[in-house]
């Protein structure tokens, strides 16, 4: 008996059904996709561009570009990953326009300030949420992540904030998996080191609650 690969029908995800309806010209389906992902695209765009107006533009341009190129979407990745790739490219273009003096690229190897072992190793106690109010904490987190190079920031946001898998992040950024892992490790360590300055210092100065 010859062995024939079973023809397994892949179940079509709800997302892909919306994409197919949108491809056939159903704008309500496309609007549902916008509703589903606009918050994510906005967050990613603002993290990359660090500018509210630019982020608003990126949301519009990314969805419009996705709409205009739906026919070219091959359905080999999730629609969301494809959309993120468009949004990241749009956001990086905005960033380059604003900061032309610095080349902004995801491909180049980003130099880190310090890859050696962390030296300050006191734990964060009490928890940062108990040490600062919400507005203070938000300010610390925003300023800290803004200090990371764009290449690290983007990988961290996609992987750890938006929850994309390593493979999806690599796909969205057109990077290799080892490159994503390397940037992610360095982004996480740099953020930890920078946050340490706030969370450790205050802990040692406050004494017992």
């Amino acid at each position, binding site marked *: 008996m010859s062995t024939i690969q079973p023809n397994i029908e892949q179940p079509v995800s709800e997302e892909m059904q919306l994409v197919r309806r949108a491809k056939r010209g159903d704008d309500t389906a496309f609007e549902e996709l916008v509703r589903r992902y606009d918050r994510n695209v906005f967050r990613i765009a603002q993290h990359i561009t660090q500018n509210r107006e630019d982020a608003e533009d990126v949301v519009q341009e990314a969805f419009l570009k996705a709409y205009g190129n739906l026919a070219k979407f091959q359905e080999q990745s999730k629609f969301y990953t494809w959309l993120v790739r468009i949004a990241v490219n749009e956001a990086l273009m905005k960033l380059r326009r604003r900061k032309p003096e610095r080349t902004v690229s995801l491909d180049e190897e980003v130099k880190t300030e310090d890859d050696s072992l962390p030296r300050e*190793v006191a*734990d964060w106690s009490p928890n940062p949420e108990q040490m600062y109010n919400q507005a203070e904490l938000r300010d610390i987190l925003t300023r800290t992540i803004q200090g990371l190079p764009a290449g690290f920031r983007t990988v961290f946001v996609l992987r750890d904030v938006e929850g994309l898998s390593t493979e999806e992040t690599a796909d969205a950024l057109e990077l290799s998996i080892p490159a994503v892992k390397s940037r992610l490790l360095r982004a996480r360590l740099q953020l930890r080191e920078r946050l340490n300055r706030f969370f450790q210092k205050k802990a040692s100065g406050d004494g017992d609650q």
Partner: protein
Amino acid sequence: MKCSEFLNELTNYLDGVLDARTKTELDDHLAWCHNCYVVCDTTRKTIEIYRDSELYELPDDLRTRLRSAIMSKCSEHKKSNPPSS
């Protein structure tokens, strides 16, 4: 295992994608190396705090305005690029 070796595997360790043997080696290292334990713990907290931070949430009014602008531009695009079939 040296601390630098532990650090190189930290992302894989936190993401839970290590084989059982490597994970055991890292667990053993953490059991006696306080520095690496703290780095690992505070890195985990770093990820959690950003994940839960809700930075850059899209306000409802802006969201409605953006969606309306997007759909109106899509409609214009459709008019100027009618389907070929």
